[in-house]
């Protein structure tokens, strides 16, 4: 795949061009157009400087407000910036971790994870303040006080080895997805396979949401021994394929593909993926 967004646009049958999308994001009259443009720039990986600048200024938008007081445009802008690989935006995303809107904080934490810049670690750790005791649900909202899943996952990916003691208690958090996120982070930070085996066991849970969550975590950390259990769990093929892609990607990086050829393990994962298409 080339990096020519114009080509992707045509393949998708979309009528936006890069210039139009940036213009749509800059104007302030139509919030719907701005919201869509922010998503679009991320989707088509438009990483040119004027797109980045427009997305960063959208992180401070005051115009687009949800009925609950949230900032929909900021959420989309943060998500888009996570996809564009430009680390100059890290300080602006760190600012977003203080936003009143839970979903802006969540999107920012996820974007910081994708950008892979360890300078975000202290700000992410501060969201764990108070530990499990403080990690309670917000009354009348479908979420906890902080986006713990996203924060824990980001700390794992960013290699926050100093945070292991703060993360470990979250293995016992009452929400299973939070436990999974802590498990995943601790595997990444310690390399101990026992953490992954906890996640593999979760693939047998009767609850579909928990199976999905464990599967996506195993894919994200790229735990090769999980390939067969992921393929066998009861869940949608689309999600299994994404998880297996994660497992395969991690293995391919490890073996030096494509300079080096495939291994039998890689061929085995490909076979599992073929069956799910």
């Amino acid at each position, binding site marked *: 795949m080339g990096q020519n967004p114009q080509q992707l646009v045509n393949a998708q049958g979309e009528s936006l061009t890069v210039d139009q999308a940036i213009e749509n994001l800059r104007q302030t009259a139509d919030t719907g157009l701005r919201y869509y443009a922010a998503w679009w720039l991320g989707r088509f990986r438009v990483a040119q400087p004027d797109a980045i600048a427009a997305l960063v200024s959208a992180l401070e938008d005051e115009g687009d407000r949800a009925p609950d007081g949230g900032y929909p445009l900021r959420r989309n802008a943060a998500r888009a910036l996570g996809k564009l690989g430009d680390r100059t935006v890290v300080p602006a995303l760190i600012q977003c971790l203080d936003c009143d809107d839970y979903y802006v904080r969540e999107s920012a934490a996820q974007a910081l994870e994708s950008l892979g810049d360890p300078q975000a670690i202290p700000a992410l750790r501060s969201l764990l303040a108070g530990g499990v005791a403080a990690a309670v649900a917000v009354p009348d909202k479908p979420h906890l006080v902080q986006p713990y899943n996203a924060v824990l996952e980001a700390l794992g990916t960013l290699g926050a080895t100093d945070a292991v003691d703060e993360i470990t208690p979250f293995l016992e958090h009452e929400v299973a997805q939070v436990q999974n996120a802590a498990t995943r982070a601790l595997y990444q930070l310690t390399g101990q396979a026992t953490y992954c085996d906890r996640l593999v066991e979760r693939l047998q849970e009767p609850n579909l949401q928990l199976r999905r969550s464990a599967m996506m975590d195993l894919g994200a950390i790229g735990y090769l021994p999980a390939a067969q259990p992921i393929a066998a769990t009861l869940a949608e093929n689309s999600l299994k394929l994404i998880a297996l892609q994660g497992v395969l990607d991690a293995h391919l990086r490890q073996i030096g593909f*494509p300079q*080096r050829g495939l291994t039998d393990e890689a061929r085995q994962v490909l076979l599992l*993926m073929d069956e799910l298409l």
Partner: protein
Amino acid sequence: MGATVAELVRAVEAADSKGAMVVAVHHLAAAQDVAAIPTLITVLGYNNPGAAVAAVDGLVALGQDAVPALLEQIDGYNYGARAWAIRAVALIGDPRALPVLLETAKGDFALSVRRAAARGLGTIDWAKLPSDQAPSSQQEVLNVLIGAAQDPEWVVRYAAMAALEGLAKALAAPETQKPPILACLQQVFHHDETPAVQARACRALETLGELADATN
């Protein structure tokens, strides 16, 4: 079990929860009886993925007998049912489904449906097509799969690689049609942005004897 197909059909019609529906459809699918086809197809239109998966399994097990009714369903307006029916014909591999698979792989808006259709194009049972039609039909499949190799979604490109491998093994006119397949596989192997897709292209080249297998 000993229940007749009519009883199994009634059990599906009487199911009063999503779980009960899944179980009833499993039983009906397991009967492997053509009389179950209309009911299995109706189930594809209920918004119940577990039951739809069971119905697809049952229809695929019935093979070509289920194809005419499935193609009729694909013409219908229920989008969910259409997607499941496409999955089923993609898995059956009957060449009567070629037009719909070609159309779907080219332009359906749901990536999981494009993915299933692309895969299906690689597993067509070409022996069921009159031999003089194979080269031109295979050329159409080839063109669509080479287009799918540029799809914005990695999983569709992945499916296209698997399908090109299948097609390359079944060509009626390999002297003209194999070179463009190999060129496409090489291109994706070296240049795709997603390592899993590169790996699938690499595997296809290995299988077709175009790459030295590093470990064997």
